[in-house]
């Protein structure tokens, strides 16, 4: 039979979410929810100075002095 190689629309996936994000860790899963809660707590929006300074330095010296071990 030809014409069978296009996917059936998802059956129980009507959550309005993109197919790639529909997974067993979705909103209906307790583990999924806890995982996101855990991660959100780690996601602090402010960026410590050391990183913006580092990038400024890197940009200034196009050739960084560190990390040339290899």
């Amino acid at each position, binding site marked *: 039979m030809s014409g069978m190689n296009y996917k059936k629309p998802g059956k129980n996936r009507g959550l309005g979410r993109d197919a790639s994000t529909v997974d067993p*860790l979705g909103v209906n899963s307790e583990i999924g929810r806890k995982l996101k809660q*855990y991660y959100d707590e780690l996601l602090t929006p402010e960026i410590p100075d050391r*990183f913006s300074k580092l990038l400024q330095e890197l940009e200034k010296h196009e050739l960084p002095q560190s990390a040339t071990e290899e």
Partner: protein
Amino acid sequence: MTEPQSFRDGLLAAVPTLRAFAVSLAKNADRADDLVQETLVKAWDKQASFQPGTNLKAWLFTILRNEFYSQMRKRRREVEDSDGAITARLSVHPAQDGSSDLNDFRKALELLPEDQREAIILIGASGFSYEEAAEICGCAVGTIKSRVSRARNRLQEILGITGEGDFGPDPVTAQITSTIVA
């Protein structure tokens, strides 16, 4: 040539998510920040190998992850050398102290083997697709899927969560449906 300004901005914008991923890998906030720092330096060096328009976040996660594993190997050697098993036990948590519920979850997560922990974080928290996670970890999509599923089962077991079916319908509905079909 890429515009250095926008590349830099991209790196800077990725810092929060890189830090979160680093903490979940390293289980230690200070080590995590060192990892992020090393990642930014490496990324800057490899700037030419990044294709603008592709997924910068995934590219950075790959670098961070490689860095983590190479540091871990190094550390393991050092620990063996100095016979100082204590250093390996030093695990400090970030200052934020969430609910005890969340603490339990964090502890459970730490009990997972690294490969499972990273897989479930990438898929369930960092928002990557299975394909992207496979690329980041340098393995097959199927491997990521099975790691995620093992991680989830293990977490459910540790936390005593029961009754969550694998996909779609809950177990009861699934059973009824399969009985009807059969």
